[in-house]
């Protein structure tokens, strides 16, 4: 797992400005980005950091679950991570555990089920998208991602916060 959380966002966001960060009352939302492609991880990290997010990346579902404290060794000492992650964004097609399976595990957990999960994929397969949305995914995004996509995501999640 890449320790990009160590190099947290270089911009200092102001807490009062709602134009920064996903959630109005969260200064620097912490996003966990999961993707098996090193190129896509680098891209999504930059896109998110550009919008004042703190980013942790994981190369597969297992690592992601470990980071969220939902791994096999469900350690209460990892609970610290649980309250920190504000959003999980994951690729659908990954070897081992797919993004869908990761989504399910998150939604099944009592601790993490409230955290919004966004699925991304390079393929537009309506059946796949509906399956994810039904399982509780907040949004589906088509790759390759652009800055405008992340901005839309932010707006969508801020609306969520208000309801």
């Amino acid at each position, binding site marked *: 797992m890449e320790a990009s959380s160590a190099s947290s966002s270089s911009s200092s966001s102001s807490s009062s400005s709602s134009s920064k960060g996903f959630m109005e009352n969260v200064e620097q939302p912490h996003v966990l980005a999961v993707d098996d492609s*090193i*190129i896509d991880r680098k891209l999504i990290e*930059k896109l998110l950091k550009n919008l004042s997010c703190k980013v942790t990346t994981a190369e597969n579902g297992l690592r992601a679950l470990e980071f969220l404290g939902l791994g096999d060794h469900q350690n209460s000492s990892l609970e610290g991570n649980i309250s920190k992650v504000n959003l999980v964004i994951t690729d659908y097609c990954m070897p081992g555990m797919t993004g869908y399976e990761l989504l399910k595990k998150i939604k099944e957990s009592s601790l993490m089920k409230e955290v919004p999960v966004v699925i991304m994929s390079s393929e537009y397969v309506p059946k796949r998208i509906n399956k994810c949305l039904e399982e509780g995914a907040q949004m589906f995004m088509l*790759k*390759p991602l652009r800055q405008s996509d992340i901005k839309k995501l932010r707006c969508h999640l801020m609306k969520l916060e208000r309801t």
Partner: protein
Amino acid sequence: MYYTCICMYNPQRGGRRCNESIRSVENTKTKKMSAVKLESETMADGVSQLQKQLVDYTASLFDEAFLDEQFNQLQQLQDENNPDFVVEVVSLFFKDSERLVDELTKALDQQTVDFKLVDKNVHQLKGSSSSIGVQRVQRACIAFRDCSEEQNVEGCLKSLQHVKHEYSLVKNKLETLFKLQNQLLAAGGPLPR
């Protein structure tokens, strides 16, 4: 002490007078010293020439579909916090692609080809080409995928050759692009946005 050459940087005002005083000196060594004027206009010309070269070259890469809009997106992401972002991502892409092409070559060389493995690797290469914006490589991967879905070994081998060809073309183009950018930066010019 005698100098062989005097370089006058930005001599707009004092250049001629300086030259005249050198030439009027008694001492022949000094009198015959060469004088080189480095005028800012010349430097500015050099920069704008490099800029034009870069803009034209970049445009040609888009015209010939080597690059597409996604590459523009990458360039837009580059900023003072990450001044080498594009080069870094592209370098990752080169490394990853070469690995995938090796895997594909190996997989297609087996007695019994594991098409699931072939498909997985082509999918990854297609994905990363799409993320970088190297359109021709991406298209070659799409055709490759069709062959692997049909479990057509001959087709796959041809597709792999095509992918390798497009990849080496675009790698060359991108390396040239980065070289032009570096030349422009070294000449003191800003990169065109």
